[in-house]
């Protein structure tokens, strides 16, 4: 879609949206947000690029294959539950750092799990969108 308005709007919006998606992800444990919504917002940002600049630019911005993101996300989510096993606790028992980190707040394995969800959602949406865009005549 060749539209100067959309293009210049996108240029301002995309960084903000990506930042906002990370904000949602990190804050999700205490305030409205979370990995799922964060992933959707990030996907929307990339989708905007896809619409205004085309598939090539969107792929360049993402750098990796969206399906690789899906795989990485699943791996992160799966792995986030392993550390408690080493202590003899059930899989996916929440482990938390005692000291909160600046900006991010308290960090624990459920937050890492949420990062996995974020990646999976982002990857899935973009994989489907890219495949649809590829099919365009």
């Amino acid at each position, binding site marked *: 879609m060749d539209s100067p308005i959309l293009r210049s709007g996108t240029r301002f919006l995309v960084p903000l949206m990506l930042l906002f998606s990370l904000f949602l992800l990190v804050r999700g444990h205490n305030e409205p947000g979370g990995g799922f919504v964060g992933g959707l917002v990030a996907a929307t940002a990339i989708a905007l690029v896809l619409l205004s600049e085309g598939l090539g630019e969107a792929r360049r911005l993402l750098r990796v294959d969206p399906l690789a993101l899906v795989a990485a996300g699943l791996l992160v989510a799966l792995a986030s539950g392993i550390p408690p096993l080493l202590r003899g606790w059930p899989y996916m028992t929440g482990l938390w750092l005692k000291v909160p980190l600046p900006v991010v707040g308290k960090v624990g394995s459920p937050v890492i799990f949420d990062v996995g969800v974020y990646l*999976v959602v982002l990857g899935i*949406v973009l994989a489907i969108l890219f495949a*649809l865009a590829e099919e365009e005549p």
Partner: protein
Amino acid sequence: MLTPVLILFMACALAPLVHRATGRRAGVFLALVPGLLFAHFARLLEPVASGQAYGESLEWLPGLGIRLAFRLDGLSLLFALLVTGIGALVLVYGGGYLKGDPRLPRFYSAMLFFMAAMLGLVLADDAIALFVFWELTSVSSYLLIGFDHEQEKARKAALQALFVTGAGGLALLAGLLLLGEVAGTLQLSALGAQSGAIQAHALYFPALLLVLLGAFTKSAQFPFHFWLPGAMAAPSPVSAYLHSATMVKAGIYLLARLNPALGGTDAWHYLVILAGTATLVTGAVLAYGQTDLKRLLAFTTLSALGTLTVLVGISTELSARAAMVFLLVHALYKAALFLGVGAIDHEAGTRDVRLLGGLARAMPLTAFAVVASALSMAGLPPFFGFVAKELFYEAKQEAPRAGDLLVVASFVGSSLVAAAAGLVAWRPFFGRDRGTTKHAHEAPPALWLGPVLLAGLGVALGLLPDLLAVPLVQPAASAMRGEHTDVVLRPWAGMSPAFVQSLLMLALGGVLYAAHDRALLRLEPLRRLAAWGPDRAYQGLMAGIVALAKTQTRVLQNGVLGWYLLVTIGTTVALGGYALATRVRPVPIGLEPVTLGEAAVALAMVAGAVAVVRAQSLLVAVAALGVVGYGVAVVFLLFGGPDLALTQFAIETLSVLLFVLVLRRLPRLRVLSPRSERIRDGVMAGAGGVFVAALVLAATAAPHPTPLRDYFGAASLALANGRNVVNVILVDFRGFDTLGEITVLAVAALGVVALLRLRASAGGRGEAL
């Protein structure tokens, strides 16, 4: 006891790496694993013979009383030795047999996988653990039988074996659970002590029937015998392993294992002895009618399995002894024969008995192994098979039921098997060299080592049975009986009635052997009759299932998207509506006053819905649908669900973007369906709306609010360090569910992408996969 099983599973995982590192010698290196385990088990022979049993038990599913329990007694030890010993030889053999084949790493892995499952099966002391290993042997044998997966025949045979043994496995699970219910324990070694209570219980017969169904399908007993010959599509080393000492013996093992608990009743005697007798005769008759050496061996295996089943069914002291001796001898000679025939096939290029001849000079070592094993199979002295056959003849006199039938059937059966053994022993090696396609010469060491060792062992055991066989057989027979059982074996028991029978049997076998060529012609009608056997029933059942699936797909998924919606919504409304109408008592609904904002949102949504239905262009329809979606999000916001609202907004936005990508490719909106269909669809849509509204009202008006809300509200921050209850539930309390959901999502996305690319490449546009 867990360690050996784990070691084999690890070897299975590492096999491809070992193959890459050691190349052609990988078979020998990998064989070291079961070989060393064999040595380990052999060292336990003496303590076990003196009555000791080794146990090990780990918590598995404590809530269900299921333990990962293992126990090594005489019976387990005999099987463990066969599994690891023959397993090691077969790995060496496989490395030579499939030399240079790119699928060799897969062969090693599948073989070790099967070995681990089989070893776990014979060591398990918990009914559920046994069942899990039982199913693992089915799965791994599926991979092994279908090894030549590019051939349709192999795929079909593998699937058939999986279906038959898998169905039997389900029956076995039900039977074991019933048994556990009756006995109050799932521990196999504790069942024997309860035999009185078990056999007096009303559930005894159903449990017995289900367990037997499992054992009979696995051990290819009549009428489930038909999958075994098909399984010969596997490469020779696989057949040698699965059909001599392992897979098909699992059923026999189970019967022997449960004999103390279930055996000795009339039902047991009748069912087990009759099934065994039928298998014995069927296998022998069909074996005699073969010209392909491998199929011939497969049918003699059936006959042997029938014999074993009969012996277990008789369940006297003598028959237990005979069963264990026969089990050992059959494992030795049958593995050697399969491997030897594989070597003949490998070197001469054919397995057809009519085309082979005069190979003895070219392949002396293979000839020794095959001839010695075949004579053992025929039951000729001084081979170990003779000892086993004598015991069998003695034991069958003790059959409490169907004795006369058994005497005749076993006499005829073993004569036919003896004739078949003659075919295997004589035809390929002696007589005229018929000039096979390949110029035959002795097989490489990897191919003759196993058969020669096994055949040599058969000779040694036959000459000195008391010295060599008793330490193996006596503990096994004792374990099978659940009490100490003395075993005395002699190379020759003197001029007993059994010996006379043996002589008569061999004479008849000789006559049958001489008449084989003529008999083949006579057997033709019989073979046509056999085509109408249970295999036909299986094929019919499979065809029926496929036809049913096709019909229901045609009806429910006819390719029209509107119809899919109709089916989905209709089913939901019908089932949910029924439950709502019958289960939920009407309660007065207290409607609160509606604010202006809420009313405005509701009106906008209604207007949006109307606009969707009336829209003349797709773009308008999408926009109007967006109004409805955003309206829902606003409602979430108004009623205190910021998380839901946020997600709903994001989803709506993305949906619009998706539509934009798809829109250009869709045709213009046109009315294609007749008026009647549109009315039907409208009614269904209305019903769906009414149903959901009623469901929401019923849910919110439920008299007792669930305690979950309060619990999560209180526990969220205290237990999971988060104030956002929705998110905490998603990533912590129900994190495991979420893990499953994102996995499903990922799989679905893969499917969508694959379909889209498939379309693109089929249409000649875009890139192919």
